């Protein structure tokens, strides 16, 4: 066994029964596995946004970047581009990644940049005490929509597929073994990976029973096939009642932004003489 100690002294302030515990435990277990297999802990950076999910970086004794609301993705991209050998794992809430920071998520998927995004999708704003999010169902009664929302949710997995993500998966906080499997696969995937975790907020939107009744694991699904992935992603639209598939919907190995970006870089000669050369050329 390894000597890895991933806990910190930070006091955990999630509500008892919060779905975030499953994500935290699954991630710690996957990091431990990866470190046992030879990845060094100093080569991992975890990034989070703002919201209940984001406290996860305080609870894991690893390099971390506690970012601001909606801005997990670009920070994670910057870290990856600064050093492509680093494993960068971003944690974001649904308000965070699918709301305020949606543009970044789409562009990261479009670039197929080699980072992992784990979305704590509880379909409600928890830390701001119960407002609707981009994935709340139509008619959701929150504190900003007491009469119920008048808009349909987005299907984030469909959006990611359209944007060019090369790894798309979904799990729930009632299935830690599957979460571990998906996180591991996502982190090891070469390219942009997103795992949407239906993580239950026990205080503002307790969906344990709802998900338990409808969720099933994908079997015999060909994740290499775009059309099959699209069909499975469309089965449940985050709104109407339907079976909720869990597992890896789409997985494809394609060139990443990181690879392409680094290919173009050649190294320099001495900076001062190059500056001089440039100046002389402008006489």
């Amino acid at each position: 066994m390894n000597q890895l100690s991933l806990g910190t002294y930070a006091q955990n302030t999630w509500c008892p029964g919060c779905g975030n515990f499953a994500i935290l435990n699954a991630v710690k277990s996957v990091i431990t596995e990866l470190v046992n297999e030879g990845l060094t802990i100093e080569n991992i950076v975890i990034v989070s946004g703002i919201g209940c999910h984001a406290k996860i970086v305080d609870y894991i004794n690893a390099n971390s970047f506690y970012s601001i609301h909606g801005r997990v993705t670009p920070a994670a991209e910057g870290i990856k581009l600064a050093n492509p050998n680093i494993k960068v794992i971003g944690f974001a809430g649904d308000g965070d990644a699918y709301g305020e920071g949606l543009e970044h998520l789409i562009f990261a998927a479009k670039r197929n940049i080699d980072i992992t995004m784990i979305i704590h999708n509880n379909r409600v704003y928890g830390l701001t005490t119960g407002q609707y999010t981009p994935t709340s169902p139509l008619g959701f009664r929150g504190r900003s929509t007491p009469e119920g929302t008048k808009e349909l949710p987005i299907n984030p997995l469909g959006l990611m597929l359209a944007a060019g993500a090369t790894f798309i998966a979904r799990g729930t906080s009632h299935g830690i073994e599957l979460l571990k499997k998906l996180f591991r696969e996502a982190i090891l995937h070469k390219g942009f990976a997103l795992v949407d975790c239906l993580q239950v907020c026990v205080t503002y939107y307790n969906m344990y029973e709802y998900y338990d009744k409808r969720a099933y694991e994908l079997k015999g699904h060909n994740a290499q096939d775009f059309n099959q992935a699209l069909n499975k992603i469309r089965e449940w639209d985050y709104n109407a009642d339907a079976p909720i598939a869990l597992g890896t919907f789409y997985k494809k190995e394609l060139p990443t932004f990181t690879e392409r970006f680094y290919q173009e870089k050649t190294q320099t000669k001495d900076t001062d003489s190059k500056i001089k050369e440039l100046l002389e050329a402008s006489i």
Partner: protein
Amino acid sequence: MDDFSLLIGGKAGFGIDKSGAIISRLLNQLGYRIYAYRDYPSLIRGGHTFSIIRASKIRIASHLNKIDFLLALNQETLDLHKSKLNKDCFFIYDSEQVKVNPAATCGTGIALGKILKEENAPEVMRNSCIIGAFAKGVGIRWEALDVVLKKEISKELDLNLKVARRGFDAAGELTRLSQLEQKSLPLVSGNQAIGLGLIKGGLKAYIAYPMTPTSPLLHFLAEAAPDFGLKVIHPESEIGVILMALGFSYMGEKVAVGTSGGGFCLMTEGLSFAGMAELPIVIIMGQRPGPSTGLPTYSSQTDLHFVLNAGQGEFVRFMVAPGDPEEAYYWSAVAMNMAWKYQIPSFILSDKNLGEGVFNFDSGSIKEIKEEAPLPWDRKSGYKRYQFTDNGVSPLAFVPEKGAIIKVNSYEHDESGITTEDPNLATMMQDKRLAKGKYLAQELEGFETVKVYGNKGSPTALLCWGSNKGTCIEAAQNLGLKAVHPLVLSPFPVKQFQDAIKGVKRLICIENNASGQLAGLLKAYDFKVDDKILKYDGRPFSLDELEEKVKEKIK
């Protein structure tokens, strides 16, 4: 001719800008000192575009609205700039398009359309043709023009040379400029100088979303990236820009971002994050007139207070407003050093006049500047990203560092970077961050942060900042006044400013904004400005214009 001005104008899309660059270089190679002002509308084709190039025996950084050579590619150029022409102005013009009074003017008209047709050349080559005519008109040898065209033109060089030669041959000699006995100096824009200064300061990555007047810096660094091993990225938005940059910063890569007011609005949440997380970053803020979209391709000094105060919360920032390319180069390197030494945001406050203006660059006049390393972790004690120290600066370690867990945080945090809401810790951390400002100010005492020019004994001083430097100094010299130019605006160099205005009875503040923003800032330090000369039409002061306005104030 010791000092003259040339205006070339035509429709946007005619290649006026390129022509300005060719003419500037041509005159530069004769040994003249050059300043070029570029005026263009916010569109791709049509509309009126012009450049004013001033050439002088002595170093200059201002233009005159008194034109000695007019290169007119269309009638509009003549009509719009009539009032600026000296009475013995030389005309070089397209005789098929421009109607001039031959009796009242000295000039040479060239049938550009006819020549282009005969050479089967595209319309954009009218420029090369009129430049050929100009060269002949001022007695420049063909060989000299040939060299410059070969340096400046990358597309269809042979045809351009042919067309230029036709213009050259068709023109008559109007006057003769002689080769001056001084070494030619490089010609650079303020943006290029900023880029080179950042590189000198150790830049590894530049991240930006295009926005006038700072886009040329993005283009310049993207072009230079392979030579200097830079990572240059253009992401989805300015929010993406600054957060991506902070990712680089966390990893220990020296990074800069560039934008203008609107883009900077989007960056402010990231800026405040940098302040809290103590992530070093350099921000180049090129000002243009607002509010909102304003006059996007023109210049202003309207964002001084915005940049000084941007971002929620209280945190230390370094801010410098260079006045010319040498200062832009030197202070961009300093800004990088200060950002990393103090783990703060550093601003280079520029504007369109500095960023896109073209000036001579005299490397010999610049003080030695070196990249400085940030305070490293000693690898002995357990690593704490926000360790308390006497001067507030915590040692830095960067991922991957064996034995160090590096945690940065936008929340208030403890020394290890873990979130806290403890009142004592919150106070101590805020004190730690602000303490850095005191030491930064102390260090800046060793730099020339406020400069004095002109007649230093004069009781009347012109006070200016940023790109007004060149025009102000020249006006002060011509009128026997003192000129004061503060470079560092945060932390404000109170003592050096005090010394600079010693003996001054009357301080006239010159700014490109409508409210007198520097004058307002000075009030906070109990300095009083006696008078203001403000211009906010997006155009820079021309030397003659500023002199007139100063004379009115002091008569």
